[in-house]
C-alpha cells in the first residue's frame, strides 16, 4: 500500500462515520413534511440547509446534496494517489460533466433560455470542457457541439449528421455515453489488478443493467432507431450480457424466459419489469452495488475498496436524499418514498 493510498483509505474510514445511517434516512423519509425533513436533516452532518424562497425547493435541495457529494469526493480525490485520483475523476467528474453536457444540449435543442439551462446543471467545476456557461451561451446546438472541439467530446461531431437527419437528440446523447464508457475503460486500466476488481465489477454490472434497460425500451420504441443503428452501435460496450443476449431481449415475445436465462443477479434485479415498475430496477441496482461495495470493503479493510465503498455510499446517500426531498415537497406518502430508497433497506 502506497503512503498516498494509506492516507486516502484512513480518510475514507474516518469519513464513513459522517454518512447517515439506515435508521436516520428512514426517519428522514418518514418526516411529516418538508419542513420536518429539513429540521431533522439539520441534526445530521448536513447541518441547517437554507433554501431560497420562490424557487422549487426540491431542486434547490438537490443542488445542495450534489454539492455535498462533490465536496466529499474532492476530499478523497485530493488525498488519493494519482492513478486512483485519475480514475475517480473520470468516473465521477466526467459522469457529471456528461450529464451537464446532455442538459445543455437538451436546452439548446428545445430553445430554453440560458439562465434556465444553467440552472439545470449540476453545480460543479468543468472537468474537460472550459466553461459550461460558454457552452450554454452559444446560439445553436450545432455551435455548442463545435465548441467541444479539442476536448474528449470532439467525437460528438460525427453524430451531428444523424442528428440533423432525424432531428432527434439521442444520437448525441448516445455518443456522449460512448465517450464516457471508453474513458472509464481506459482509466480502469490505470488501477492495479487488485484495485480493479471491485471497480470493474461495479462499472460492468451497471453497464450491463443499463444496456438491458435500453434493450427493453427498444422493444416498445419505434423501429426507426433500430433501422438507423446496428445493435452493436447502440450498445458499444457490453460485458457479461453480450450483444446476442441483448438482441434476444429486443426481439423476444415473452421477456420473462430470456431474462431468467441471464441468471442471478440480473434476473432478480430486472424482476420488477414484469410488474411494470421500471424505476424499482434502478433502486435494486443501487442496492446491489451498495451491498457489493460493503462486501468489498469488508474483504480488505486497508485497500482501495474502502475508498470506492465510501464514494458508492456517498452517492447512494445523495440519491436517497434527493428522492426524499422531492417526495416531501410533493407530499408523497412515506411508504411510497421508502420503496425507492436504498440505504434504509441495506441495513
Amino acid at each position, binding site marked *: 500500500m502506497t503512503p498516498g493510498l494509506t492516507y486516502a483509505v484512513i480518510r475514507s474510514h474516518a469519513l464513513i462515520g459522517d454518512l447517515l445511517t439506515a435508521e436516520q434516512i428512514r426517519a428522514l423519509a418518514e418526516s411529516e413534511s418538508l419542513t420536518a425533513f429539513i429540521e431533522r436533516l439539520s441534526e445530521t452532518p448536513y447541518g441547517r440547509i437554507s433554501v431560497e424562497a420562490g424557487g422549487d425547493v*426540491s431542486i434547490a435541495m438537490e443542488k445542495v446534496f450534489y454539492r455535498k457529494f462533490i465536496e466529499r469526493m474532492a476530499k478523497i480525490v485530493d488525498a488519493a494517489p494519482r492513478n486512483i485520483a485519475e480514475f475517480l475523476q473520470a468516473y465521477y467528474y466526467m459522469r457529471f460533466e456528461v450529464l451537464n453536457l446532455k*442538459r445543455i444540449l*437538451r436546452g439548446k435543442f428545445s430553445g430554453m433560455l440560458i439562465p434556465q439551462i444553467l440552472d439545470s446543471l449540476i453545480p460543479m467545476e468543468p472537468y474537460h470542457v472550459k466553461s459550461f456557461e460558454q457552452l450554454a451561451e452559444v446560439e445553436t446546438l450545432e455551435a455548442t457541439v463545435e465548441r467541444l472541439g479539442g476536448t474528449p467530446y470532439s467525437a460528438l461531431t460525427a453524430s451531428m449528421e444523424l442528428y440533423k437527419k432525424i432531428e432527434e437528440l*439521442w444520437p448525441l446523447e448516445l455518443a456522449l455515453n460512448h465517450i464516457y464508457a471508453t474513458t472509464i475503460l481506459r482509466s480502469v486500466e490505470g488501477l492495479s489488478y487488485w484495485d480493479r476488481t471491485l471497480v470493474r465489477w461495479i462499472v460492468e454490472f451497471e453497464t450491463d443493467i443499463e444496456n438491458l434497460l435500453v434493450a427493453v425500451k427498444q422493444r*416498445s420504441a419505434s423501429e426507426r432507431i433500430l433501422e438507423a443503428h446496428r445493435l452493436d452501435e447502440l450498445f458499444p460496450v457490453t460485458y457479461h450480457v453480450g450483444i446476442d443476449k441483448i438482441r434476444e431481449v429486443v426481439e423476444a415475445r415473452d421477456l420473462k424466459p430470456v431474462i431468467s436465462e441471464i441468471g442471478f443477479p440480473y434476473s432478480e434485479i430486472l424482476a420488477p419489469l414484469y410488474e411494470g415498475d*421500471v*424505476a424499482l430496477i434502478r433502486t435494486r441496482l443501487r442496492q446491489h452495488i451498495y451491498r457489493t461495495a460493503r462486501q468489498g470493503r469488508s474483504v480488505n479493510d486497508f485497500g482501495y475498496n474502502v475508498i470506492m465503498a465510501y464514494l458508492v455510499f456517498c452517492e447512494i446517500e445523495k440519491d436517497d436524499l434527493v*428522492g426524499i426531498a422531492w417526495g416531501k415537497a410533493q407530499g408523497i406518502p412515506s411508504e411510497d418514498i421508502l420503496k425507492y430508497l436504498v440505504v434504509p433497506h441495506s441495513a
Partner: protein
Amino acid sequence: MSLMSGVRPTKGYLMDLKRRIGFIERGTEFLKLKRDHLAKELSASLEVLRGRRRLLLQSLQEAYRALTAAYLSLGPTEVRSQATSVKRKLELEVLPRSVMGVRYPYVKIVSKPQIEAELDITLSHAAERVLGILEEMIQLAEFEARAERIADELGKTNRKVNALENTIIPSYRRIIKFIEDKLDEESLEELVRVKLIGGALARRRE
C-alpha cells in the same frame, strides 16, 4: 297594466291571434320533443361519464405512480431536463360541434409528443402511461362539456316550455276568449239593434 290593454276586439285581430296561438302550440310541441330528447341524451351521457371517470381515475393513479417513481429514481432536475427534449409537443385544435342545436367543443389532437427516442426508460414508461390516458382525458373533458351544455340547454328549454304552457298560451287563450266574448256581445247587440230597428220600421209602416 291590464292584460287586455291594447287588445283590439276585432275579427281580424282574433284571426291573427288564433293563427299565432296555433304557431305557438306547434312550437311548444317541438320544444317538448327537444326537451325529451335532451333529457334522454343527458341521462345516457351521465351514465357513460360515470363509467369513464371511474376507469380514467384508475389509469390516472397508475400514471401518477409511474411518474412519482421516475422522479424518485432520476431526481427532479433530470426529469425536467429530459422532458424538455421531447420533440413534438401536444397540439390540440378545439372545433365547434352541435347536437340538437346545442354547440359544444370538440377537441382534435393535431400532434402527440414523440417520447420513445429521447427519454430514459423510467420516464418513458411514465410518459407512455400519461400519453395513453391523454386522449381519454381529452375525450372525457369534451364529453363533460357536452353534458354540461346539454344540461344547460335542457334547463332553458324546460323554462321555455313551462313559460309557454303556463303563461303565454293561457294568456293568449284569455285574450281570444275576451275578444270572442266581446265579438259575441257586439253581434248580440247588433242583432238586438237590428230587431229593434226592424220592429220600429214595421210599426211605422203600419
